[in-house]
């Protein structure tokens, strides 16, 4: 599928899909990479070393630092696929060299948990 490139890079890994938007500050533990928001559908899951798929980011502007901290603590996703890229996620990924792409709704919805994909955020493709 073709995707829009927000932050360039390439990564290969297993998909982890979130139904709800992600609030990085507060919602994710910046050291362990575990989802700590009890109301979130990924509660308790580790988001590191996966291709994280979620509709969009919400919440505090400082969430961008959480993404950077995850990278620093080796708990960051390999790449992120969004339905709508927001400023917090885009800037957090840019500074942390995490490839970020936006997929069309139909394509986005076709991504399944556990599926192995290659995010090519240079050519703008997911294979």
């Amino acid at each position: 599928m073709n995707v829009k490139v927000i932050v360039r890079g390439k990564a290969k890994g297993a998909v982890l899909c979130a139904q709800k938007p992600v609030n990085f500050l507060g919602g994710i533990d910046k050291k362990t990479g575990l989802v700590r928001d009890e109301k979130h559908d990924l509660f308790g899951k580790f988001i590191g070393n996966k291709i994280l798929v979620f509709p969009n980011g919400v919440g505090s502007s400082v969430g961008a630092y959480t993404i950077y901290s995850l990278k620093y603590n080796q708990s960051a996703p390999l790449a992120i696929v969004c339905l709508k890229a927001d400023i917090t996620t885009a800037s957090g990924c840019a500074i942390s060299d995490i490839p970020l792409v936006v997929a069309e709704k139909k394509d986005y919805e076709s991504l399944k948990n556990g599926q192995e994909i290659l995010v090519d955020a240079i050519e703008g493709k997911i294979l």
Partner: protein
Amino acid sequence: MELTKEEESALDGKHGETLALAYRILVAIGEATNADKLIPVEWAHLSGVNYNTIGDAGEEFLSHLSKDAKFRIKTTVNPMGFDSDNVSKFHLDEEFVTKQQSIRNSYVKMGATPSFSCIPYEIFELPKNGTQVSFAESNAAIYANSISALKTNKESAFSALASALTGKSPHSDLRDEENRKPNLTIRMKTEPADEITYGLLGYFAGKEAGSSVAISGTKGLDRRSCKSLCAGMGTSGSCGMFTLGEEEGEKIDFDYKEMARVKDELNTSESGDIITLGSPQLGLEEISDLVAKLKGRSFRKQCMIFCPRAIQGQIRNLGYDKELTRAGGEILYDCCTCLTPLVDKENIDAVVTNSVKGAYYLKTSNGVDVNLKSLHQIVEEETK
């Protein structure tokens, strides 16, 4: 997004690492928001100052960045973790204090004004109407767009930082006049119109709205209620501005049922061990009003009152500090309710506050319960 030749070469690293990084951020958010170009901004207000939120990764990043980076425009900063004058009183661990001081020093070294305030719109002079700024603090971004007649997107800590380093931001979303008109109206159908109601309304509207929303049916909305509205709105979603009065398009009612639903989510206790006032920080107007309300009364429990350092001299010269101390209150500068390390769940089960934003972060970040009460109620019920 189109870049000028100059911008392209900065992105390619021809003007150094720092500018290359800043332009990478600008390009990413430009692509994310479908911007057509970069435009100049005159003022950046940064979040990411509290060690509690940015941690070791953030502290090291800023320390490294400040080795050669310099801010190109007026740059002000959000609250940090404690009041510099009262560090010892709060038994903060030594590492926290050292790392927080390092963060402070890095920002100052790069040229930031050490304002440590989430109400830049109250303590700094406002540029002329329509000026583009980059505000990362959400209540400040919404207030700037809605009340101060400035233009900003609801920036992230890094996007505002990139603006500070370059003097630029992508031209998109609320920076473009065409996108500022709301297509959803929230109709207020509730009383009483105190700061809690407006905070809950903001929280509700922030969840429902896109980047801009109209609010109709407001009753007795004054500047201080607007602060609550902005703070609530900034907490729950991605909405970056509101207008007053009904607009064309979809309408949603904020009625008693909705208000109760939001309040139930945030008001998790029927009482509290301490009181915190702030988030956003209190300005001189609120301090003045609080002093008047407390005449002859004193707090039954510890009450932290969070203010920007910019008004410390005035608070002292007006004798307000003496009055608040007499009433058992404690003024804290440089920091705020929101994400404060001074409220610790080891010692405190629940907090009384009149801030909807504060309630959200006290629960989700500090892990304590919250009892939401208006300032009027707090003075009635929590003082003697």
